[in-house]
């Protein structure tokens, strides 16, 4: 029997989700995620052709409103909660290759 998910796949998914796993964690999570996917085989095995997927409980149309200026968050208060700020903006590590 093949495992529902391999360590290689878990490592890839962790990277996509921007998480780093130790070797121990990789082993443990592979086993645990495998158990959940194993349980999900009951759903995987169902014959559901022709059933319309339901992504949401309400039959929502696009919700729009008039484009009017409303109460807004205070810029300073918002920036005060950020880990790093420069010149009234969020600061992040260098994205492009060259030195500043």
């Amino acid at each position, binding site marked *: 029997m093949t495992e529902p*998910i391999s360590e290689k*796949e*878990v490592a890839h*998914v*962790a990277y*996509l*989700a*921007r*998480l*780093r796993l130790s070797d121990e964690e990789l082993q443990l*999570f592979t086993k*645990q*995620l495998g*158990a*959940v*996917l194993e*349980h*999900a*085989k*009951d*759903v*995987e095995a*169902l014959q*559901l052709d022709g*059933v*319309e*997927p*339901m*992504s*949401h*409980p*309400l039959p*929502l149309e696009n*919700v729009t*409103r008039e484009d009017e200026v409303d109460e807004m*968050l*205070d810029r300073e*208060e*918002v920036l005060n*909660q*950020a*880990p*790093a700020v420069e010149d009234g903006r*969020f600061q*992040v*590590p*260098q*994205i492009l290759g060259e030195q500043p």
Partner: protein
Amino acid sequence: MSSIIPATSLTAQTIAEKVQSGEWTALETLENYLTQIAKSDAEIHAFNTVLEDEARAAARAIDERVALGEDVGPLAGVPVAVKDNLCTKGMRTTASSKILENWKPPYDATVVKRLADAGATLIGKTNMDEFAMGSSTENSAFGPTRNPHDLTCVPGGSSGGSAAAVAAGFSPVAIGSDTGGSIRQPASLCGVVGVKPTYGGVSRYGLLAFASSLDQVGPFANTVRDAAIVHEVIGGYDPKDSTSISEPFPSFLDAIEDGVEGLKIGIISELMGDIDGISSEVIQKTREAATLLSKNGALVEEVSIPASLYCLSAYYLIAPAEASSNLSRYDGVRYGLRVDGETLAEMNINTRTAGFGDEVKRRIMLGTYALSAGYFDAYYGKALKVRRLLAQNFDEVYSKYDALLSPTSPCTAFKLGEKTSDPMTMYVNDVCTIPSNLVGHPAISVPFGSGSDGMPIGVQILAPPMQEALMYRVASTLESAEK
């Protein structure tokens, strides 16, 4: 067994009447609850933050308004404990995660604002499973909450702090959020009333998102009527939530004492033994509840919701899928924790690896996987089809029945550490509550006696969307018949 349960508890209704009439002050009422918290919360850990000073200021303001002859509102001077995933302006909101340990939101959740506008005093922010992912409150980054009925047991989760706060007499009512049973299951385990409203019935604005198509905010209380009173305060259309229902709901209180004479109530047969792991004691209690309802004039029969057999699997694909997307916002840029790195990607990885606990990581990875190319149709796509089948099952049953009955939790409160080693064992706790979330229907857990271990058992009443009035009627009948 060591327990911390008050001999008597006041209702929110009584407090509001006495405070509004001037017989009691909001401040002395609050002080009584703060005394209870100071005495016992070190053992229970229901709260992440107790807002003593803020609550006292709010209580004084209410007393001043009462003195001026103002109508303060339906929750005049009523202390309310709020789950720590609802934004409180300028007050720490952590979701019990290290990634938000010191975050102070720049705005109030609509629910928080409505509570304050109704005269309530916000007494504190309650502990929870990190980002509401869990069924025992053991996944909190700040340590578990303990069940007030037995300190060696869990309170359930993820809103375990709110349930424990009401059970321990720390607050007459509380607010939680329910994505797969996170209000109803802890209510059942702590012996209090807990409600998941119709999806779209209560605003999600300012609720830290877990699974947006499933999350709903709702009340905990000692009585069904108190839950309905709080629900009326927090519910109703909010333009800030695009999934909010604009149509008004019928009053939850007007018909609450009308009884169940002539109502047709179905017992969900799949949750009465077909699915493994539901204790015979809990099933027995649910049958007793059915008997009581029929003695009160309802027609009670077994009904079938065949798709409920697949709900657990479908939920644990859909909820993680939505969570993996919702939690991508915790990237160390705009708020919360940042752990530095040479590059942006490295900073993101360092931050999320240090900031999230194991269960959150598991669900993010599970969701990322279920949504990834090659697996999307087999997992997420199939789960969404099960959701449709489930909705069709409910529609069919509700064409013949007014409301449904089932257990809330498959078991009474379990010991701390008993179910933490295997995630699947923990997930099974949600098996009876998940169906309502997947279809967006309202459901309530009502305390209904206790098991051989002396721990509380709750039964669940489910109703069609927007039929909360009916749900509260059935719940109220059960509550008065049980007493």
